[in-house]
């Protein structure tokens, strides 16, 4: 780890693609210092007292939204959940108008999840509050990649030199894109694996290896990350059936043996047991899936803290 200290200067966290390795390290190190808060009997610090955070979720999300909410509460921020059902958006208001109205309430930070790539970037240009991308379509999900990296670092003590296999629906996954950017920037080797029908074109140009069998993808891997398969893609043009998918790319205890002995298995959730991952793996000793969720709170506290403009000297 570098000892060089840098200051966080970005108003927004839109993606991992634009971050430097030093910025990523700063985020992870800051998360490390917040993780202890979650172990206290009184899980609260006054760091963001008086700051307002709006959670603006245009897509259903339980895990990510809850994680942000808990992170905000543990930092003593005032938070508000704005979800789309029953809102002005259903009455035909444009996204920009919604955003400008929220801005008029002067929040400090807006956490946004939206199905269209680029929406956080659009808002960041238009409103003064700091924008945190909590997932924009199949583009990026930066806090997920950060919590994944945090979890890997906890177990492997490093990121550089590791071999990380990411398996599943690569084409539609924002998690995979953010993870590719983060892990390759930090010196890890990323292998993506999945059916050719779910592999986006030119993915190798993002600096990854591509494998079209599960064995090729996870052979010698330090980390195996399974992605959720959206069941609604079954029977369309992506794969004929769940049964066939599991036979080709489902992770079982048996098939995991080809990875390193000390492999860890991850999943961003929510899981489809028996589709992309067998229960004996998901619940097995190699699985760190629930740790990911725990670390998600620390990572999001770090992001909220750094973006809120509270510098480390002041704290």
């Amino acid at each position, binding site marked *: 780890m570098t000892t060089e200290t840098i200051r966080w200067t970005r108003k927004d966290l839109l993606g991992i*693609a634009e971050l430097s390795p030093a910025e990523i390290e700063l985020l992870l190190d800051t998360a490390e210092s917040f993780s202890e808060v979650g172990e206290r009997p009184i899980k609260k610090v006054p760091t963001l007292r008086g700051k307002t955070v709006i959670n603006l979720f245009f897509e259903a999300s339980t895990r990510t939204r809850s994680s942000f909410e808990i992170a905000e509460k543990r930092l003593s921020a005032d938070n508000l959940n704005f979800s789309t059902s029953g809102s002005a958006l259903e009455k035909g208001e*444009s*996204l*920009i108008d919604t955003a400008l109205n929220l801005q008029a309430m002067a929040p400090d930070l807006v956490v946004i999840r*939206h*199905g*269209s*790539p*680029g*929406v956080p*970037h*659009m808002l960041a*240009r238009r409103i003064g509050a700091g924008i945190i991308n909590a997932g*924009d*379509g*199949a*583009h*990026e999900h930066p806090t997920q990649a950060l919590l994944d990296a945090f979890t890997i670092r906890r177990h492997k003590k490093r990121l550089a030199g590791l071999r990380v296999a990411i398996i599943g629906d690569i084409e539609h996954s*924002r998690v995979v*894109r953010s993870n590719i950017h983060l892990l390759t920037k930090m010196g890890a080797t990323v292998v993506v694996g999945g059916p050719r029908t779910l592999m*986006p*074109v*030119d*993915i190798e*140009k*993002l600096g990854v290896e591509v494998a079209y069998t599960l064995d090729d993808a996870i052979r010698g891997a330090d980390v195996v990350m399974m992605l959720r398969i959206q069941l609604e893609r079954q029977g369309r043009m992506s794969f004929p059936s769940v049964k066939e998918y599991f036979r080709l790319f489902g992770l079982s205890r048996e098939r995991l043996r080809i990875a390193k002995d000390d492999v860890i298995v991850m999943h961003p959730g929510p899981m489809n047991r028996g589709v992309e991952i067998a229960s004996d793996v998901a619940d097995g000793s190699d699985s760190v899936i629930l740790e990911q969720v725990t670390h998600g709170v620390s990572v999001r506290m770090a992001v909220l803290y750094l973006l809120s403009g509270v510098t480390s000297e002041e704290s």
Partner: protein
Amino acid sequence: MPSLLIHGGRIVDPSQDLDGPNDLLIEDGAVARIGGKIQKPKGAETIDAKGLVVTPGLIDIHVHLREPGQEYKETVRTGTMAASAGGFTAVACMANTVPVNDNRSITEHILLEAQRAGFARVYPIGAISKGMQGQELAEIGEMVAAGAAAVSDDGLPVMNAELMRRALLYAQHYGIPVIQHAEDLTLTGKGVMHEGEWSTRLGLIGIPGSAEDVMVARDLILTEDSGGRYHVAHLSTARSLDLVRLGRSRGLRVTCEVTPHHLVLTDEEVAKTGFSTYCKMKPPLRSERDREALVQGLVDGTVDCIASDHAPHHRDEKDVEFDKAPFGILGLETTLSLCLDRFVHAGILSLPRLVELLSTGPARVLGIPGGTLKEGSPADVSIFDLDGEVTIVAAGFRSKSRNTPFDGWTLRGRPVATVVGGRRVEL
């Protein structure tokens, strides 16, 4: 109408291999004399073109004037003003109005509005199919009788191969080309940008180049069998260009146009601009490899003309999520400057070749008058400053809309004036 003498300019007219200092005398709306120094006739008006380039009027054979039906985006009046401001004396407007220009009365309405405005000649393009539904042929003969110059369902492809075959057969009665928006919609799916490295990086759904290529290949086969006259609108891929070459080598009557934005920008622009919806159009901005191939097509003669696909949209329509924004950008007021700067000043095209692509070529594709300053031809003239620098300011456009990715670009070369039918157009 008084005579008009345009003197002191450099006349570039590829239709008669002319490039040099010449005067041009216009009488009764037609070219009366061209060449050398011409004495000003008594009572004639004059345009001093010293230091300027004088060419046959520029023609944009692919624009959307949005009238009737979407006058909040553009009208025949504002669209032809934009044309004139951009150096064009004629445009051909696509049929995807509301209602669709699939019958004589809409064609006549457009022509009447064009006449009232008087800024540029307008050649309506009729729909191939009724309501652009892709089911049955529109009244092509009626529209041609009213003044339509070609047929196209542009905005949508003719997906039905049998209908396309019929259109290629039937249009031959009127000697007009069938213009295809070549896109296999089943391959496009919900795509919003070119499928490639950048769609993968940005997580946007891709439109593969094959969506265009498959359609061009199909149509060329139908053109061969029908003996028809086929024109590819806004051709955007290297492979489609190769297919056009193949078609020509087999003796087919096939032509194609390319837009300035496909010649200047690539799919990476979507990322560079942070998902700007002004980079969203159909066909999408393609790869650098495609872009280079298109430029090569300008040089080697495969491309017949440059056409802007001027597609006005209201700001509110474009100021939305990238996924949701309508396809299309403006072109009339940026085409000439972009082409002069990027191709002529960059040493890629000679000035006569560019004039061919913007005037003589388009006239030939549609079989319409213009594209030449030969004595006796209609006196449609464009005058531009080859070296004058211009900064594109969308807020100052004559068009009603502002959706251009070129706002703020500084370019070398700018339009100065147009003459339509012997009359200098005053904006």
